[in-house]
């Protein structure tokens, strides 16, 4: 694989389970960085991850990871890490013993596996507890071990399935910080699957939004919110006159509580606002640009889809 090749590439990927279409003709590429896969339960996130890991064969299309098909080239999995959403830790062994074993199962020689396990536990914040049986661990500690086992063999890319599930607010903050650190400090690219939009927005550089097995949006997180930028204007009086004056100038404007919201403004809209304020003789109280949160955007996409379906 060359440095210009994407880490993951899906081309016309379709997966059907009898009558259920889990993924429907999905194409995308993912390069180095932190990428979020966002979608509700059943959107096809886990199916996509399983296909990339070579655990499930697609009905049609192709899915390559690090330039190879993991279902036919099992060895490529030595460069992949996976942190599942559900419990996956043996209760009777210590974190150190478990990570050492998992490093060996990933192909590392035994002596190196021990060193890597200790280092990884230190980086994930579990160094002091590493010799205790995992049955006594808290949810936060278990999540750290789950992340640790996914990183212990130093993969090129790691798949994180709902890494903040079951964590309290403090634990969630720490886990999101670890996810950022995984890419920024360790250099391991991350594919972050979640249904928590706030987590994805705060952690990821890029997102893919899946809905009903289809890719409905993809791109940079910053670009997403920039595209949905609005300007909120609040005036003391003559709001309706201002709205009419803006509409006459071709500006898309909607009433929003006591003020007005202008969708997708470009630089020229501010001149129109100035002129409309003068024309409507409306005293300006407040004018501020505002970006939609990803949460808001996702719900909007959902509304569009349900509207189209009906």
């Amino acid at each position, binding site marked *: 694989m060359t440095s210009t090749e994407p880490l993951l590439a899906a081309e016309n990927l379709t997966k059907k389970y009898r009558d259920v279409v889990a993924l429907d003709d999905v194409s995308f590429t993912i390069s180095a960085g932190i990428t979020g896969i966002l979608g509700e339960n059943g959107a096809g996130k886990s199916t996509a991850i*399983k296909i990339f*890991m070579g*655990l*499930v064969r697609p009905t049609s299309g192709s899915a390559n990871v690090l330039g190879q098909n993991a279902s036919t080239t*099992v*060895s*490529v*999995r*030595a*460069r*992949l890490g*996976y942190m*599942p959403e*559900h*419990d*996956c*830790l*043996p*209760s*009777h062994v210590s974190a150190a*013993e478990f990570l050492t*074993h*998992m490093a*060996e*199962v*990933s*192909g*590392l*020689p035994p002596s*190196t596996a021990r060193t*890597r396990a200790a*280092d990884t536990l230190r*980086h994930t914040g579990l160094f002091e507890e590493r010799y205790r049986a995992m049955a006594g661990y808290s949810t936060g500690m278990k999540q750290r071990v789950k992340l640790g*086992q996914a990183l212990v*063999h*130093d993969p090129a890319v790691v798949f994180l399935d709902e890494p903040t599930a079951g964590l309290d607010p403090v634990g969630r903050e720490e886990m999101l910080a670890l996810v950022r650190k995984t890419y920024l*400090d*360790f*250099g391991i690219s991350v594919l972050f699957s979640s249904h928590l939009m706030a987590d994805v927005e705060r952690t990821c550089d890029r997102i893919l939004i899946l809905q009903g097995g289809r890719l409905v949006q993809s791109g940079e997180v910053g670009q997403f919110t920039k595209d949905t930028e609005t300007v909120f204007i609040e005036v003391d009086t003559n709001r309706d006159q201002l709205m009419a004056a803006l509409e006459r100038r071709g500006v898309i404007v909607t009433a929003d509580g006591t003020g007005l919201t202008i969708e997708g403004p470009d630089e020229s809209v501010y001149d129109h606002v100035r002129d409309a304020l003068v024309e409507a003789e409306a005293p300006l109280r407040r004018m501020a640009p505002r970006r939609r949160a990803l949460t808001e955007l996702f719900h909007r996409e959902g509304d569009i889809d349900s509207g189209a379906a009906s």
Partner: protein
Amino acid sequence: MSTEARQPTDTATGRGGTVFDIGYRNYTGPREGRSRARSAVFKDGIRTALALGRGARAKILPWSFIAILVFIALIMALMAGAAERYGGPGVAEQLNLPSHADYYGIASIVVFVFAAVVAPELLCRDRREGVINLYLVRPLTGSDYIMARWAAFLTVMVAAVWLPQVVLLTGLAMGDPAPAMYLRDNWLDIPRFLAAGLALAAYATTLAMLTASFTTRRAYASVFLVGLFVITTPFTVGLASEIEGAAGQWISMFNLTNIPVHVNDVIFGEVSTITSVAPARELPALVLVGWYFAWTLVPGSVLLVRYRRLTP
């Protein structure tokens, strides 16, 4: 990637040292792929079966069975030794005291219970706790996993059935007035008990692993297996004794504890104490061996297919 240094100072001497946090280091060493993965699962299987690296309580069960198996061999060796000592040379053979050919028949029920209790530990826990999901996303297929686990338990079982035979051989040789002569006259028993032990271990391992693959609860698998071995014995023995002829012989073939013992008889060329009353002993050796392979290879194939299809 980052390197930070702290400089703690020893207040007594006034000298300072430097502690470096060398940060995260990427791994650039060898990656040994599937072979290392299979070897790691195999080693872990042996450790799990024998409870190595775990507390004393976990060790009680597997090591008790091994101790019982050795104890049976020890008793047999002591009986033969006592007969030779108090009855004179050759008395043990004249009394037809149980020996290598009889050991597996006598100990088979202990071997089966050992397999029933310990084998599920290698599979059920991984599936119940979800660890299997982590194995399957590594450079390891479901087939690799189950073959490594099967090989691990087979190794433990082979060691557990060979060890008592070695003890018995040592005991019989030491009890003989001329140990070297005894070994020279009976050396053929060594490859025979090795082969018969391997057959018994492979059969018990495969059936126990297959049963364990159907449940995530170790207790269910163990109870089912013990029931299967313990219940089929009196049922088939009773029914076969009532029905004579070929039908009785074939009913006798369904005595699951006797299947590998018949192979043992074929290998040693004599009927052991346990199978001497089984009507199936009269069937041709080819049928007995074929029946054994059917009961080992078919469950083995089902086990392999079940794990080949497994996805997290």
